[in-house]
């Protein structure tokens, strides 16, 4: 028994992730034997101590009743469907019983072609596939005398219903978000792009977890090299289990040692579809509502899908605001430190006097004060994120005391500092993506150290260092800060400013899309040319 299990374990280890690599090693496959008892014994051995396996052994009524066995995992299949369309069709079929020509040798074909009333039926010849199919929620039927298994797709997994995305709510835009089931998620994408050019290739990643991963792209738009690169990088992963798309993100990013996210993630199907249409590649992972989109460029982390749904002036306004607040979130505390420590002359004298007056009772230098308050804010944020809602309110009350008037009256910080911290916090909340805001929040601290040591010069040096660093970054070969550098004028139509849709005739060029044309030129609408007719129509009515 043990040896068999070990053998299976080894098989799992060796069964490589990508389908075509697996086919290169056919010698390792254990084939299904024509002897049903042997098969059942084997499968029971494999699933030893797995209480969720259901084995239904029964006889198909014929002149000489044929032994058969049905395997499935309890809770992963639709029980009604299994009972009605598999068991019932096989056990209560008068024509089958009366047909004298049926025996062990042709039962398999008759069952598969005539009796099973299931939409998707496939066959398998080896144990490895069989076990996997059982585990992925299919019902597997073995018939005595046949060395093949019939696999009926009766999968029904418990799943949350499609809900509004919690992390990316919009004012204007669709309300549906991805859920934990990859099938539902694929449907959500397919519903938006009804074209056979939308390809979705399934992979299995995780030597033990065997997680379904789908690579989505639009054929003829996404660059073939990019698609292959994504598949290759995914194929190289040999981890035991993938529980969330974040696992994959760390495996496939170009540069692991950076603070900047190089893969964008989202739980919005509309964002995913927009990116697919731009020629990017999407990755859906089973059991998580968060999808991955590659390649990612930095400006993407400052954009929200809503920018494309609002009219262009409004979108441009909000994007500009976000661009400014990103800099505030990154630089405001350090600028405060630099000005108070080194460049007091830069403030207007009345303001300087008022700040100096407030700081009179404060025992700490500006740097310490700022770091302390920023840390307190980060504590508060972390405390608030994972708390159950009712306790969360308590945190906000306490938080208002800690970063607020109480701290000022205790003489720990100046009220100007409270303003700075609050403004920084508000600014960092405007960054629409979580990974983007993490990068900014973390970088704030080294910037504060630089500002405390070298003033404005230090801030500038920090910014230059960040700039040089982001210039070295690439996400799947695409320069990270495109279209700023390398500069591309046509891509600037959708960057800080968002031009109206009818002007965006081209897809972003930096991803090397196969088909750059998005729409024909001059789609701009105007008043109807034939005015007389319209006016006439109105007067007539």
């Amino acid at each position, binding site marked *: 028994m043990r040896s068999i299990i070990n053998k299976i374990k080894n098989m799992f280890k060796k069964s490589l992730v990508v389908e075509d690599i697996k086919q290169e090693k056919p010698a390792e496959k254990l084939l299904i034997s024509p002897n049903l008892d042997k098969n059942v014994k084997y499968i029971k051995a494999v699933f030893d101590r797995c209480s969720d396996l259901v084995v239904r052994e029964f006889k198909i009524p014929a002149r000489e009743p044929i032994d058969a066995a049905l395997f499935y995992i309890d809770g992963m299949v639709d029980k009604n469907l299994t009972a009605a369309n598999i068991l019932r069709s096989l056990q209560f079929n008068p024509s089958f019983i009366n047909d004298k020509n049926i025996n062990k040798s042709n039962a398999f074909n008759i069952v598969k072609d005539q009796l099973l009333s299931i939409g998707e039926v496939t066959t398998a010849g080896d144990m490895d596939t069989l076990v996997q199919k059982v585990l992925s929620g299919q019902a597997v039927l073995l018939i005595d005398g046949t060395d093949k298994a019939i696999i009926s797709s009766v999968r029904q997994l418990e799943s949350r219903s499609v809900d509004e995305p919690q992390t990316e709510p919009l004012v204007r835009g669709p309300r549906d978000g991805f859920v934990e089931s990859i099938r539902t998620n694929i449907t959500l994408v397919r519903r938006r792009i009804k074209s056979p050019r939308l390809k979705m290739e399934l992979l299995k990643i995780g030597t033990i977890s065997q997680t379904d991963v789908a690579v989505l792209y639009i054929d003829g738009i996404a660059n073939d090299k990019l698609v292959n690169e994504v598949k290759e990088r995914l194929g190289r992963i040999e981890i035991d289990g993938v529980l969330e798309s974040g696992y994959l993100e760390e495996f496939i990013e170009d540069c692991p040692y950076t603070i900047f996210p190089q893969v964008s993630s989202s739980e919005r199907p509309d964002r995913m579809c927009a990116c697919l249409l731009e020629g990017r590649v999407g990755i859906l992972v089973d059991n998580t509502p968060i999808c991955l989109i590659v390649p990612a460029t930095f400006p993407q982390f400052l954009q929200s899908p809503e920018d494309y749904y609002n009219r262009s002036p409004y979108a441009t306004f909000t994007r500009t605001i976000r661009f400014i607040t990103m800099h505030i979130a990154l630089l405001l505390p350090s600028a405060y430190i630099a000005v108070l420590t080194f460049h007091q002359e830069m403030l207007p004298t009345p303001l300087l006097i008022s700040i100096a007056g407030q700081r009179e009772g404060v025992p700490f230098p500006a740097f310490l004060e700022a770091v302390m308050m920023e840390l307190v804010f980060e504590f508060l944020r972390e405390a608030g994120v994972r708390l159950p809602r009712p306790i969360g309110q308590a945190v906000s009350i306490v938080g208002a005391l800690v970063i607020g008037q109480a701290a000022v009256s205790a003489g720990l910080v100046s009220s100007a500092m409270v303003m700075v911290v609050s403004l920084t916090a508000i600014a960092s909340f405007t960054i629409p993506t979580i990974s983007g805001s993490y990068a900014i929040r973390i970088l704030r601290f080294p910037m504060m150290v630089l500002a405390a040591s070298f003033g404005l010069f230090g801030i500038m*040096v920090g910014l230059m260092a960040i700039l040089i660093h982001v210039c070295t970054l690439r996400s799947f070969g695409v320069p990270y800060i495109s279209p700023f*550098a390398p500069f591309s004028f046509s891509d600037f139509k959708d960057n800080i400013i968002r031009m109206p849709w009818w002007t965006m005739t081209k897809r972003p060029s930096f991803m090397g899309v196969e088909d750059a044309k998005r729409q024909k030129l001059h789609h701009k609408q105007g008043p109807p040319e034939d005015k007389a007719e319209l006016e006439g129509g109105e007067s007539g009515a």
Partner: protein
Amino acid sequence: MLEKGKVSSRQGILLLSFTVVVSTAVLIAPAITAKAAGRDGWICILVLGTAYGLLTSLVIMKLWQRFPDKTIIEYSQTIAGPFGKLIGAAYILWFIHVNSVVVREFGDFIVASFMPETPLIAFIVILLLLGSWATKCGLEVICRANEFIFPLFALSVAGVFVLALQESDFSNILPIMEDGIKPILRGSWAPMAWRGEIIVVSMLLPYVENPDKASRDLAYSVILIGIILTLATMFTTAVIGELTEYLTFPFFELARCINIGRFIERVEALILVMWVAGVTIKVAVFFYIASLGMGQLFGLSDYRPVVLPIGLMLGVWSLELFENSVISIQWLAEVFPFYSFIFELGIPLVLLIMAVSGRKGGRPRSG
């Protein structure tokens, strides 16, 4: 080839040479030209400086057309044989020397204008760390970083111009050429030397993706630099007037003078932003070409191992070069022009004549 990256002509030629020349020249040029030519300093920069810049770029382009995949370090060896190695070594030394002067100027400026209590060495070390990092990242990264800061740089300069309009009195520029042409000729040496720094592109040309645009972009760059520097000098003269020649960093003082409606004042922070960004790129470029040249001269398979030694050399050299910023400005005005003339125009011209007479290199391509 030591550098595997490719840059577009706009990134590598037009924008990079602009930053290389303007980032330092814009701050000091008005003072040095004013010393010799008084209020006519802008003519020095506009006329003779541009002419010299165009001449230098013409020589570089002609040489490059004969050796399209070689840098000046490489083709000097082809043209002049064993003597070419010496030329290459001299160029590398010159690159390092100029770079250390730039680093020193930068350190002096920060110490004098922003942080008088911090030792000079701190700024030099930080700048060199940034420069060596950029160098290690390679040409593509330097070009991309420059492409990103170029609009920032241009906007800061333009912003200073626009804001200074209120304070400026353009009658300060008149009368033009009161003392004849001689002071202008004398004042032109220093601007010419800076404009000639465009020679750095001779190290970058082989890595340009679209060579057919390179000549045009180089010419544009020379002209654009001419316009910006001329405007800077004119505005400085218009705002500060006769005093310009006594200042060390007149463009910075110009920014200090700006005060509009008591709420736009003290915009010199803009100058700091511009200066740090521009000088980082400039130092990185000179650092890079010195390392690349060294790699090519000694036939190394990678230029990165020489980055650290060159960085140390730069640090020591820039600390020990001058006693103070007055001496450095004097050196820049009096010694540097003649010294750099050899490298910017002298040697390339000799190489070109040798190449033409010795029929070396490929046929010059048209366009």
